[in-house]
């Protein structure tokens, strides 16, 4: 049984890497449609990645070994973090050995190396992007942890699989989960660099955050960095979809369950991606100095989730 479970976990990790560009392609396609453009094909991100992977990687003269190592570290830690989030089946061995706090830690590690790499070459843009990324993440992380604690207080566990099991077993309308969902969505938008906080479609803009750190990268290094960013988006999408809307996720490792789980998560992510695209079309990018207010709102939502759990749900 454990061999089957580890096989499923491995399969799921591969699935994460394989599906991540597809989600980005889908979001871009929906956005293009909403803007009355035809847009690139949904598979375009795969072609971009392949193109970058076969290209020669150029590195600046002033770069240290850290600059070369960072893409691998960022990609591997993000992938590792993604593999702990249940995608098609709940009771994965990877979800059992790492809970949500480890997940947050792994993402923080990836971000740390990303910021270091941004500063390494010594260009103005890289340093600026790194400092902005740290500003956003320093505010987003407490909000994310607070939302996670709200979930953990209901489920009596910080383990993702237990939280999802709890949601499946005892579903109820919970104000705390509603607030945690709102908080997590805002955190996800900030962390994955989507529109009100950062614009993923730009490569030369004074207010860019994520792209500014990648300006010096090329070839396979750039491919890995972009792939890691796509993985992170899929990770947050799967996290939100499977915790708050857990229906359909596979309870066991039979092929039928896994198939249904895959179809369910596919539909959920399609819907989530379309919602994100609509949001990005409707909203304009904020000024950077309004990002703290945005993340304060996320923190407030998470805090209200915690309080409403204590006040409304525990009772006497």
């Amino acid at each position: 049984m454990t061999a089957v479970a580890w096989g499923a976990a491995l399969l799921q990790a591969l699935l994460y890497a394989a599906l991540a560009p597809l989600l980005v392609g889908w979001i871009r396609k929906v956005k293009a449609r909403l803007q009355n453009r035809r847009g690139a094909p949904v598979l375009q991100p795969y072609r971009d990645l392949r193109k970058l992977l076969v290209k020669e990687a150029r590195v600046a003269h002033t770069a240290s070994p850290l600059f070369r190592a960072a893409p691998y570290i960022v990609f591997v830690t993000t992938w590792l973090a993604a593999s702990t989030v249940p995608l098609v089946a709940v009771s994965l061995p990877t979800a059992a050995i790492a809970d949500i706090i480890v997940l947050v830690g792994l993402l923080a590690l990836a971000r740390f190396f990303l910021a270091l790499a941004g500063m390494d070459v010594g260009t103005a843009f890289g340093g600026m992007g790194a400092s902005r990324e740290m500003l956003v993440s320093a505010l987003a992380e407490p909000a994310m942890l607070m939302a996670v604690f709200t979930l953990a207080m209901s489920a009596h566990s910080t383990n993702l699989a237990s939280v999802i099991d709890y949601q499946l077993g005892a579903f109820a309308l919970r104000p705390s989960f509603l607030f945690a969902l709102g908080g997590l969505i805002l955190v996800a938008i900030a962390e994955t660099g989507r529109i009100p906080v950062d614009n993923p479609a730009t490569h030369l803009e004074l207010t860019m955050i994520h792209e500014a750190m990648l300006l010096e990268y090329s070839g396979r290094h750039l491919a890995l960095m972009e792939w890691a960013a796509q993985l992170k988006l899929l990770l947050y999408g799967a996290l939100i979809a499977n915790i708050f809307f857990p229906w359909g996720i596979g309870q066991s490792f039979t092929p039928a369950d896994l198939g249904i789980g895959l179809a369910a998560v596919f539909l959920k992510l399609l819907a989530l991606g379309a919602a994100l695209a609509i949001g990005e079309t409707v909203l304009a990018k904020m000024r950077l100095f309004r990002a703290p207010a945005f993340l304060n709102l996320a923190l407030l939502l998470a805090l209200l989730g915690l309080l409403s759990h204590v006040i409304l749900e525990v009772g006497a």
Partner: protein
Amino acid sequence: MSPTLLPLLQQIVLVLAAIVLFTSFVLLAQARLVAAIHAFAWQGALVAAVTTVVAATGQTHHLYFSALLTLVLKALLIPWMLHRLTRRLALDRHVESLHRPALVIMAAVALVIFSYWLVLPIVQQEMTFTRNIVAISLAVVLIGLLMMVFRQQAVAQVLGFMSMENGLFLAAVSATAGMPLVVELGVAFDVLVAMVLFGVFFFQIRESIDSLDVDRLNRLTETAEEGIVAAGRTTPRAVAGEDG
């Protein structure tokens, strides 16, 4: 009592009550007056929704009438009057931000925790499922009070006052299944009259100090340079710009 043990309607009440609390926070932090008025209207509509669902779960049919009264008065009539007032005072594009928004929000969170601690003895008495909402309604009252303390703008202070009334109404619904109809009608009438009076007062304040920033009421005399600044203002747009 955990939510899974409650019927669906009662779960909906809890969710709605939690959103009422959230609208209180939105009201407190919203810098744009018109948006704050909309938030207030939503709060009124949500309180009416809570009342309707409480009425549907129990045998208290007179609550339907209170819900209707709240909806018409708090979600439609008063927001409409405030909207009209802000337009006539040329304040509809007015932006007034709090001095330390994060600190004020944290104070409001502390008030929520305080009100929870305060009603804990009441909650431990066996009552209906709505007992948990008493803490929420007390928090809404206290946040309304906080809003009246921290906002400088007279219209925003009135919004705080009105949201306090929302909290009191929610408390009545959740703790005792609503007040007698006579009392409720009286309160509704009072609120309406208060609103009309506030409207008159806005114009009076505006006439006398040329602004709705009530902090200026603390000053008894105008200094010389302020007199010059006041004399320099001629257009209403400039006055609206000065308010924040």
